[in-house]
């Protein structure tokens, strides 16, 4: 069993074990053990990867394996990782573990809940290790579908509406995406040879510009919708507001990163010419998204809506950076994926915990929580500071990398959008502090809230895992940044040839 | 062969009969009358088979046999259909085709 396939096998085994377990207590213990092993395996992978690179392996992808899956269309189960996917796999491992602890309190239909949750994680892991477009797409769909049930069944509020909206919009986007992928496949033999879905092979193909012009926007929008590209982001506020805690965490933390990852690796990575040609248009969209999401967040009163809009703003930066075509910005994009994954997961887990106590998410109904639950409130402050890009936390590193990268392009249009996107740090500060100020500070508004308890052990585990990750990346970013930069080199060589 | 009557005449008769059957099938609401319309349609087809056999390919018997089999099948079909109709009537007290839509929802 190779190290990458283990990443799929472990969750699948966990699924089987959960299916045979009796009570919700067993289920959650099994899920915790399974995700724990997965987490260790993810870190092991990071370690193995660094060893492999240190030993002088400079292949674009390492640990590659290939099995024929469907001969007729040359579909393979092709797997392999580079620094970017390794980093994102580690992110996924961490957030899935944290998510399992965050759903420790799920008792109703716990077995089904954890099965769908782990299945979702399986899809994400598969997506990150796959380097065959079709296999990638299959895993992508595996990741998206459980979301419908998780929100529709275990959600709150107008969950059916949200679940339906989320699924339909993502399905619509993936339909467009599939067209683009098939397009890539059909054009993969323009240089002669057989058609292929393999990313590494496709990267060598001189894709005709006419084809790129059609398929690039499809691929970018297809992935972008998952990455909350304006104006295809509206599923995200509703979806997050209705989703149960762990699902919000996983969704915003990991699943939405699939969009950025795909946009980077497939849309821009395989069709750079068209990407450069059409970048201006998508830069406008992402520029708007970054600022407009932040402005949208100012006026929200529901904690989850605030955070969802903040995600729109932060994810727009990822897509923005992806369009910058230089090593710094792309590096920043990946760092932002990881950073935002941690931070937004922390936010959603905290919101879930606070909601579990106060039974409201309306910030105006709460206040002075710092006094009542210092640990949760303190963690919320940490999340807030991390989110508004305070040094020492991961977002600062990521955002600064993006900004510096964006400024490397001398074009005046790029410059202006870069300043526009940069200005979102001010607006972010406004809405983050507004929410934190109303929620945590000031007098306690509701007498009943004085009786509320602070965090319990499994909540602390969630918080510690996430805060630790945020600060480690924030304080010692160099290794991560180097790991990502190395893996960007092949792509940059292609850009340089333009 | 019928003296003085060509294939065309027979076919015209049978197609008129056919479309009368069709018309009945469209407009009738009672299941039994619909069944009757179907019998008309089957009969018109039988006439066609027979006529083609007789006029165009007298050296073979395919049309003839086909008609025989159709009659057999028609008998079976009528038996089953009427059994269903009766059962339906026993259960829901109507054989109005527009009201028998409980399988729809």
């Amino acid at each position: 069993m190779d190290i990458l396939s283990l990443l799929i096998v472990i969750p699948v085994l966990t699924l089987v074990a959960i299916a045979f377990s009796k009570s919700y207590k067993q289920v959650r213990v099994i899920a915790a053990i399974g995700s724990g092993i997965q987490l260790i395996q993810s870190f092991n992978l990071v370690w193995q990867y660094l060893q492999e690179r240190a030993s002088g392996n400079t292949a674009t992808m390492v640990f590659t394996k290939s099995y024929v899956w469907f001969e007729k269309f040359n579909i393979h189960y092709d797997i392999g990782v580079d620094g970017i996917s390794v980093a994102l796999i580690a992110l996924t491992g961490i957030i899935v573990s944290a998510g399992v602890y965050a759903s420790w309190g799920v008792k109703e239909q716990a077995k089904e809940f954890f099965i769908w949750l782990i299945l979702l994680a399986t899809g994400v892991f598969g997506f990150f290790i796959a380097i065959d477009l079709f296999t990638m797409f299959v895993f992508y769909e595996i990741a998206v579908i459980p979301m419908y049930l998780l929100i529709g069944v275990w959600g709150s509020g107008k969950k059916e509406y949200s679940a339906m909206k989320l699924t339909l919009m993502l399905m619509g986007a993936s339909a467009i995406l599939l067209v683009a992928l098939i397009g890539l496949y059909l054009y993969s033999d323009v240089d002669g040879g057989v058609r292929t879905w393999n990313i590494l092979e496709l990267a060598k193909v001189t894709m005709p510009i006419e084809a790129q012009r059609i398929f690039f926007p499809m691929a970018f929008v297809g992935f972008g919708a998952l990455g909350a590209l304006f104006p295809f982001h509206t599923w995200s506020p509703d979806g997050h507001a209705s989703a149960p805690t762990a699902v919000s965490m996983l969704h915003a933390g990991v699943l939405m990163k699939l969009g950025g990852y795909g946009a980077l690796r497939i849309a821009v990575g395989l069709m750079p010419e068209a990407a450069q040609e059409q970048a201006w248009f998508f830069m406008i969209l992402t520029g708007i998204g970054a600022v407009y999401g932040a402005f949208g967040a100012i006026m929200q009163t529901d904690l989850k809506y605030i955070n969802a809009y903040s995600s729109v703003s932060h994810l727009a930066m990822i897509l923005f950076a992806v369009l910058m075509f230089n090593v710094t910005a792309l590096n920043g994009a990946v760092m932002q994926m990881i950073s935002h994954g941690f931070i937004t997961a922390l936010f959603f887990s905290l919101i879930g915990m606070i909601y579990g106590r106060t039974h409201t998410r309306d910030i105006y109904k709460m206040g002075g929580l710092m006094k009542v639950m210092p640990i949760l409130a303190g963690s919320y402050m940490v999340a807030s500071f991390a989110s508004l890009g305070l040094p020492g936390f991961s977002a600062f590193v990521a955002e600064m990398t993006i900004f510096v990268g964006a400024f490397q392009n001398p074009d005046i249009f790029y410059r202006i959008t870069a300043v526009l996107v940069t200005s979102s740090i001010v607006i972010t500060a406004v809405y983050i502090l507004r929410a934190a100020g109303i929620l945590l500070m000031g007098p306690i508004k509701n007498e009943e809230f004085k009786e509320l308890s602070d965090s319990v052990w499994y909540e602390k585990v969630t918080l510690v895992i996430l805060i630790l990750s945020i600060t480690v990346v924030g304080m010692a970013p160099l290794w991560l940044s180097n790991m990502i930069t190395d893996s960007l080199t092949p792509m940059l060589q292609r850009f340089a040839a333009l | 062969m019928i003296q003085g009557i060509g294939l065309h005449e027979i076919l015209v008769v049978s197609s008129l009969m056919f479309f009368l059957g069709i018309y009945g099938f469209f407009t009738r609401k009672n299941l039994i009358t619909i069944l009757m319309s179907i019998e008309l349609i089957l009969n018109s087809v039988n006439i066609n088979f027979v006529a083609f056999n007789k006029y165009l390919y007298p050296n073979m018997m395919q049309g003839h046999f086909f008609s025989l089999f159709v009659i057999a099948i028609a008998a079976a079909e009528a038996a089953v259909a009427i059994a269903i109709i009766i059962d339906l009537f026993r259960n829901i007290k109507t054989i109005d085709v527009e009201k028998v839509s409980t399988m729809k929802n």
Partner: protein
Amino acid sequence: MDFQYTILIPGLMFLSFVYNILWGRTQAPKIAGLIGTTSILIAAILSYYTAYQYFFNVGLVNGTFQAIIPFKMEWLRFNDLLFIDMGVLLDPISIMMLVVVTTISSMVHIYSFGYMHGDDGFPRFYAFLSLFSFSMLGLVIATNIFQMYVFWELVGVSSFLLIGYYYQKPSAVSAAKKAFIVTRFADFGFLVGILLISYITGTFDFGLLNDPNGAAMTQGAGAGFLGLSVMTWALILMFIGGAGKSAMFPLHIWLPDAMEGPTPVSALIHAATMVVAGVYLVARMFPLFHIAAPDAQQVVLAVGGFTSLFAAVIAITQIDIKRVLAFSTLSQLGYMMAALGASGYGAEEGIGYTASMWHLFTHAMFKALLFLGAGSIIHAVHSNNMTDMGGLRKYMPITHLTFLIGTLAIAGIPPFAGFFSKDEILVALHQSSHLWYWVEVVTAGLTAFYMFRLYFNVFWGENRHYHHAPHESGLAMTFPLMFLAFMAIVSGGFFMFDFGQFISANLVPYDIHIHWDVAGFSIAVAVVGISVATVLYMKPSAIPAKLANAFGPLYKATYNKFYFDEIYLFVTHKIVFGLIARPSAWFDRHVVDGLMNALAWITNLASNSIKGVQSGQLQHYAMSFVTGSVALVLFLLYFMTR
């Protein structure tokens, strides 16, 4: 000399922060305080030792102070040229700042033992103090702009946390938010400035940027916008960052509100250390400002000069003693900025630079003294308002005496510290710009007036009826007062008169002379100010009220700080929130989301109308089947026969 241990100066504070924030709550409050105080005292001793070693043994090589980088590590790499190092840069101004920060911070740590005694959040308070000290120390020893920016943000957040320390008080929360957001807005300018400079010069490093013969001096000269070169724009943007942190007009609005924080915090952050970060930034980038972008330097001069006058005028009418001090801080920061703006590059021409740094040093001492004194008063009276005070000199002799020393120092009366540094600033302005010279002279008179108004109102004047008699504070609070009073006397001319020996724009030591023509005039102006205050406020009298009436609208405008808060409120709430945020939230929920919902709705509608075809009616199906067949046959016939 190996200065590697200097990393411990911020490092200790960081450890103290981490320990206190994680485990502070679980222990006796005193332990947190002790840990914080011990760390800062060790850091202070290390700083003094470093200063001694640097200024007297190691620093001077060939008649020039060397920049020493004893520690440096790569923290983040953007590309081959641009990377962020975390390191320690030792040069005269950074070492001076180390001394200032650790000294004031030590005093505040000690003082807080008395002031914050019995408060619930005692460990939290010390944790945040440690965080602030760490960030500020990291800022001053930054080796490159980006490291500075990193710590710049961190001091911003420590300031937020400490202003909002009494988080259950809505006014404190909104003041904290205001401070953070206003400085954040300024930091946006700073950041864009950094990005522009990094793009122009391809480096963040102070050494490369500030080399007077380096490439950076000319790289941004061309390709301008609105008639100013790129470098000028970049530096103006960076100055916006500095202006935000140093609360220069028009970004000054957060500082008076920041007085909602505990008084030791005001002394440490909002008087002595953090607010001078902007001044320090300009001083740090001074060669670039002066050589590469003289226009930007003019902006610094104008903003600084105007702020000092503007704040002094407002300070006259305020009745909250901490706000009076806050506006005086603004005014003094304006002095420092103006001095930098007026300075030349070189030894004698660079007098403004030296004066600015010197004033930074003396101001830190006497303003911290004044704030801590004010804290002592508030502690005794339980009110911030002058109208609740009077005749306190009998109850609080030590506070009274030290406060008087601080007041004299800020008023510019020799031989107290403020006189010397302010005199040098006036000299520098006299040399370069007469307009701003006169503005600052007037400001000096106003300063003397309003400080003595404060002094007389609190310690003289009417004896109020207190609920329980005010009493002198304990040793933990009076010791820092005495120490800082001592510093306020000696940091001027007495034993470090030759500040020019240590700090000059081009790092070459030189001698400073007192220019008695400028100095004499400024003393005279100060004395006039003091006299007027004495006449008006020493004994209870009706004259101030009459004057206030006589200047009705003007008095009202100054009392309301020229309505700047209201303007900002209007801009933020009505324009930003009302005209941008609310519409965009609405737009998103209704138009963008509405489009998506409309799409779903149309699909639904279409499917509903098509659904009718699947009626479940056999006859309908048959009819469509036959219709279709007929149509198909017709179609085929038509095409087959044509």
